[in-house]
């Protein structure tokens, strides 16, 4: 009953076998070997497994891998490299936005998605955008500040 699932993750094509009930999260973590997306609850409540699927923010624990057939995915591993962080990652680093870091992959994707939709968000926009991503360490302040700094940086870059 396994079937072949082919999709593109961070620009690389991936094709693996999946059971009909295998979640996209498990597929990414165990078949593709990309463990950056986090399994925090498997109930769609924590946001740790957030990825971009054809440009939309989704919780990958609630989607079956077979449903993502042919999709374009972006995970945390696709945002920047250790040597070349994305401006958003840079802002998180300088602002001290990451503590244990477990929520951070999901936060980064929620923030990426926000900044694509709204390049000039205010504090409330940012809080709303990450309200599906729980963080137990930071109290969110430094995360909100980092996202807002990234928006500023992007604006500066655009001139």
């Amino acid at each position, binding site marked *: 009953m396994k079937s072949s699932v082919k999709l593109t993750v961070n620009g690389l094509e991936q094709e693996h076998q999946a059971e009909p009930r295998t979640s996209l999260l498990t597929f990414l973590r165990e078949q593709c070997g990309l463990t950056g997306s986090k*399994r925090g609850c498997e109930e769609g409540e924590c946001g740790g497994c957030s990825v971009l699927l054809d440009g939309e923010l989704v919780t990958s624990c609630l989607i079956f891998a077979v449903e993502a057939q042919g999709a374009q995915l972006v995970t945390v591993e696709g945002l920047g490299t250790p040597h070349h962080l994305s401006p958003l990652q840079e802002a998180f680093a300088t602002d001290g936005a990451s503590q244990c870091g477990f929520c951070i992959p999901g936060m980064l994707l929620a923030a990426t998605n926000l900044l694509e939709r709204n390049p000039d968000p205010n504090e409330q926009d940012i809080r709303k955008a990450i309200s599906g991503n*729980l963080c137990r360490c930071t109290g969110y*302040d430094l995360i909100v500040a980092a996202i807002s700094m990234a928006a500023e940086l992007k604006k500066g870059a655009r001139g």
Partner: protein
Amino acid sequence: MEAQDLKIVGRSIPRVDVTSKLTGQALFGEDVKLPGPLLHGKILRSPHPHAIVKRIDTAAAEKLAGVKAVATAADLPDVRIGKNLKDEHYFASDKVRFVGDRVAAVAAVSREIAEEALRLIEVEYELLPALTNPIDAMRPDAPLVHPDLMNYQVVAAAQPEGGNVCSLNSLSRGDPEAGFAEAHQVFEQQYITEMQHQAYMEPHACLATYNPDNTYTVYTSTQGIFGMRNSVAEALGVPQNRVKVVGTEIGGGFGGKIVMKDEVAAATLSRKSGLPVRIVMTRAEDFMCGNPRAGFYITIKTGVSKDMRMVARTMEIVLDGGAHAMGAALMCWALPQFAEGPYSIPNLRVTSRCVYTNKANSSAFRAPGGPQTNFAVESETERIATAMGWDALAFRRKNLMPEDHPNLAGTPMRSVNVEETLDAALEISGYDPAQTGLGPNRARGLALGNWNVGGMPTGTVLKMNDDGSANLITGVVDLTGVNTSLTQVVAEALQLPVEKVTVKSLDTDSAPHAAQSAGSQTLKSMGTAAVQAAQEVKQQLFELAVEELDATPDNMELAEGEVRVQGSPERTVAVRKLLAKHMANSGPVVGKGGTGAFSRMPSFCAHIADVDVDSETGRVTLLRYCASQDVGVAINPVICIGQVQGGVAQGVGMALSEGLTYQDGQPQNTGFLDYKIPSALDLPMIETKLVEKPAVEGPFGAKGIGEPPCVPVPAAIANAIYNAVGVRVTSLPINPEKLRRAIKAKKEGQASS
């Protein structure tokens, strides 16, 4: 402490682990990969809160295709384990004592098959009445959770009283009863708090292998690799050198990742199957089988004099310990030492009892016992001031603890920066005691807090490399940024740029013993050890330089990669050159450092919450939050600020929404849908002020600060709610339902009177 000229300590350098965390490369508990196939383990947990286990039959599960091993109590030595009191079997053998108690384990080629196998294990239970409340559990006719309690071996801290009371501690000074008799007024009130789960974002996860040389390797997300190793070795019945624990990156702990969980099951299944076994808890399992903050029942009685002094106080505290003593027994022992809060009361008695119930095992959660007792103490401060017509701020100031105030254990409290800390919070918030109201149903509330930070035995090794750079080896888990702060401490001590210092957390085979990352003492203990190791390194380098510099070691200093003669900057030799020249004869330069336990010293905080109460729904909105924190010296200010804000957020959860609830021993809220922790929309910006005044202990005068910031939050919010709507809620959490009822009751009371 003298003024210090610090270059690297005090700077907010980015955390050393930040890039791996931002790029998804950091390997957390479930992310560990080994070559070759891997089995998935699952645990059969008791569905009953209290029952005798009459029979376990695993035959059908073992026969299921894809199942590679099944483990039960029969696979382990018949020993009771426990760090304070030996009251637990790793797998339930005689009885199950809470919903989630471990009965058996299965390893299979997939999670689905492992789950299927669990359903095939037959267990015959004889149900017993369940206790879900420690007050009921103390009644003489209550069923006994551990009928054999008085025969259990006590390891540390626990002092069994009998019945269901697994530990009792009482300390006092003066004569509280005489104090009450002489007092101008006496106040008494009960406060109740619920079990709070740490709700770290990463559920418990581990992977174990049994190796061909008859050793075990356990990868696990834990706060302390040595404590974990010792527990695993004890349960497996093997010497500690045969277990290697590798700490993975840890996705939050807050005290909930100290006690051993499914590691021994994974190790046993690996031994039986010959393959590595990974066990990851579901979120529901983690809520059910974690080690939450104990629920407290506190009866607090206070006598005050006419001139605003607290002259006598008693606190009778009952802790809901859950099914096994664990960390709650330690907390029970420690409570009387800090429950006095930031005050000084001449006649004081604090009695704490840790009581077994048929619920999850309570243990440590950020400042264990702190927020619960503080909720009672700081609510009472305001309640008494209101009743007496006093200014609550003046009442506080009159009773603050002075420097060298002995706590109930007789230890003098040093570096008491409580007044400075209070003033700092007042200043950032603009708090005016005469004007706490901010408009209809809006007000401001204040609470002071303290937490005593000790230190635990910890060692480290500092290696000088040929090029003058250095590596610090530790066995500490980097939970809160400690490796970043240690990098700064070593760089400062050796006068090296941070790029030339690497701090690594290694495994139990490779690193000297280190304390767990807990108790706010991680940096204090390990930083002190690191400073010592740096002193040794310096001493060795200075001795090597005697010939070159024609000077004695006590006239030398280290700067910019050179040994220099003090006062003669031209007489220098590069460390690199010294090492190149002398290594062949004198051997490598390696420093060791180590500390024993420190006594516990206080860190203070003062919080001011601005709230809006919806009097129809009972919903509380935080408008603003200001927190000051006594830090001694901030090694890395941004890390300190992050600790304060995170601590406040957890306190807000405890104050307004969080509580594990049980019905007839069955847990009711085991997911984030029902167990609500604050989201970004539930919190305002948390304005933070670090109060710096070097402490007498700790590296460069740094205090422990991880835990204190959650302590005063529930009281500050409860006080704000009172100031907003005139209702004093004496139990946590103050959820909308409870507050709505209280507001309604008050209105009806007014209408009828």
